[in-house]
């Protein structure tokens, strides 16, 4: 179902692109297949260069080499470490993301709707927002220990603010006229919120969600790096601590993969929920 609608949005986008006037006929360079081909080529060249340079021009100790990094990943996979640590980091990031999103969304919604509350609490929120959230980690370690919960809470706090601010401004930006018109149709406040304010704010909320993805990982990984014996952050610290460059690169690669999966998930959700936007862009 979701897939079908995403495809529908894609189809409309392509159709519209074809309808638009352009100064030159469409170049084959713009075709998706060619684009992907070029990207793959770039990666290949990069990897070959890396492999070649390593041990010849730059000492392998500093940059390791792709085959070594890959070997490390295979090793982690076979020992079960990869699944374990990836699972823990993803679990922390996802739980924190969900909790932060829900709380940030709800509080942002309330503040956006009742402007007076927001006006009064504004300086406090800005004060807490201005604090680098990772600086809260030591406190959270005291409060919640060095386990799973600490990272979830750290992540949730980071995500909360990003989602909160975007939801807040999204709700505030809802057209007053639109609300009045729907009220005149007989809508009660809950209906106005569900049918007008929420969909209207959703664009801004998704901006918050998209920004939040990398930050959710920051929360989880920084938490792990500070105090943990599990997770990709731990893997990273452990490898670096042993001067294992291949392991360090391998851990970074794992993080890129987790981040990419998160991003794609959000992107698909957005394409589905905001499919109406696609027709006007």
């Amino acid at each position, binding site marked *: 179902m979701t897939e079908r609608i995403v495809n529908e949005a894609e189809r409309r986008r392509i159709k519209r692109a074809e309808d638009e006037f352009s100064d030159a006929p469409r170049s084959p360079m713009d075709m998706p297949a060619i684009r992907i081909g070029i990207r793959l080529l770039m990666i290949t060249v990069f990897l070959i260069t890396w492999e070649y340079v390593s041990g010849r021009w730059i000492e392998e100790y500093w940059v390791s080499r792709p085959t070594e990094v890959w070997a490390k990943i295979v090793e982690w996979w076979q020992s079960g470490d990869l699944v374990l640590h990836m699972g823990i980091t993803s679990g922390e990031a996802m739980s924190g993301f969900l909790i932060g999103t829900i709380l940030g969304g709800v509080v942002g919604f309330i503040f956006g709707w009742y402007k007076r509350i927001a006006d009064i609490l504004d300086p406090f929120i800005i004060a807490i927002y201005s604090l680098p959230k990772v600086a809260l980690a030591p406190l959270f370690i005291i409060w919640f220990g060095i386990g799973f919960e600490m990272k979830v809470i750290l992540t949730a706090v980071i995500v909360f603010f990003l989602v909160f601010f975007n939801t807040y401004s999204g709700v505030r930006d809802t*057209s007053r006229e*639109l609300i009045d018109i*729907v009220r*005149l*149709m*007989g809508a009660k406040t809950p209906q106005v919120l569900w049918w007008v304010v929420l*969909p209207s704010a959703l664009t801004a909320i998704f901006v918050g969600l998209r920004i939040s993805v990398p930050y959710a990982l920051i929360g989880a990984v920084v938490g792990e790096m500070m105090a943990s014996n599990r997770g990709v952050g731990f893997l990273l610290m452990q490898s670096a601590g042993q001067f294992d460059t291949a392991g360090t690169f391998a851990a970074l690669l794992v993080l890129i993969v987790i981040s990419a999966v998160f991003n794609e998930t959000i992107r698909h959700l957005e394409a589905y929920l905001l499919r*109406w*936007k696609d027709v006007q862009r």
Partner: protein
Amino acid sequence: MIDSPILEFRDVTKVFYKGTQPVVALEGLNIKIQEGEFVSVIGPSGCGKSTLLNLAAGLSPAAKGDVIYRGSPVDKINLSVGYITQHDNLLPWATVRKNITMGLKIRNVPTAERKQRLEHYLELTGLKGFENHYPAELSGGMRKRCSLARTLIYSPEMVLMDEPFSALDAHVKMIMHKELLRIWDEERKTILFITHDLVEAITLSDRIIVLSARPGQVKQVMQVDLPRPRDPFTLHTKPEFSAIFETLWDGLKDDIYKGENV
């Protein structure tokens, strides 16, 4: 005619505040609108024309005087009126179908009847075949038809229109006049229409009320006795039309320069 207007402004004064600074938008306004009448209000920019509609809709309270709808004062949101604004104010995330049937859904009209009425209004406004389009995919004229359909479909007794066609280009505007007159002929709803376009006001209305520059007061009331049905494409070439135009313009021109946007 027995004097029982559907909407009456009785000595209405409306004051806005810029911080604590009062600005009088309307002063001592007396207007009566009869059921089934098409009344236009014209006046210079900033004379409080739109305020009039917000008062009638119960969206904002009068400082003095009473706004009376069917004999009782409007003191909360007036659910008997529909509102059409300059911006079409469709829900951009909802298809034409969902936009049009929204009022029925809010009023808990059963699905079968919803469907039946949707068909009727799609037909009436010429939107058939566009049910599944999003507003962004429609032309300006079609969006206007859509907002017309979604207002008429839940049968408000009275329709408030705030410069609904002012954003359209000249030709589309005339087409919309024709459509509106045709639809109005079928339904004979009471319409209170705000505009700054004299031609538009004369083409559509039974009666035209001219407001003065701020604070808005009734300056002139003019009955438009041109026979119906009217043809918006040729009406303005008739001598009767020109006579009305000139009288109205005489009343309006001094104040135009006192308006804000000159």
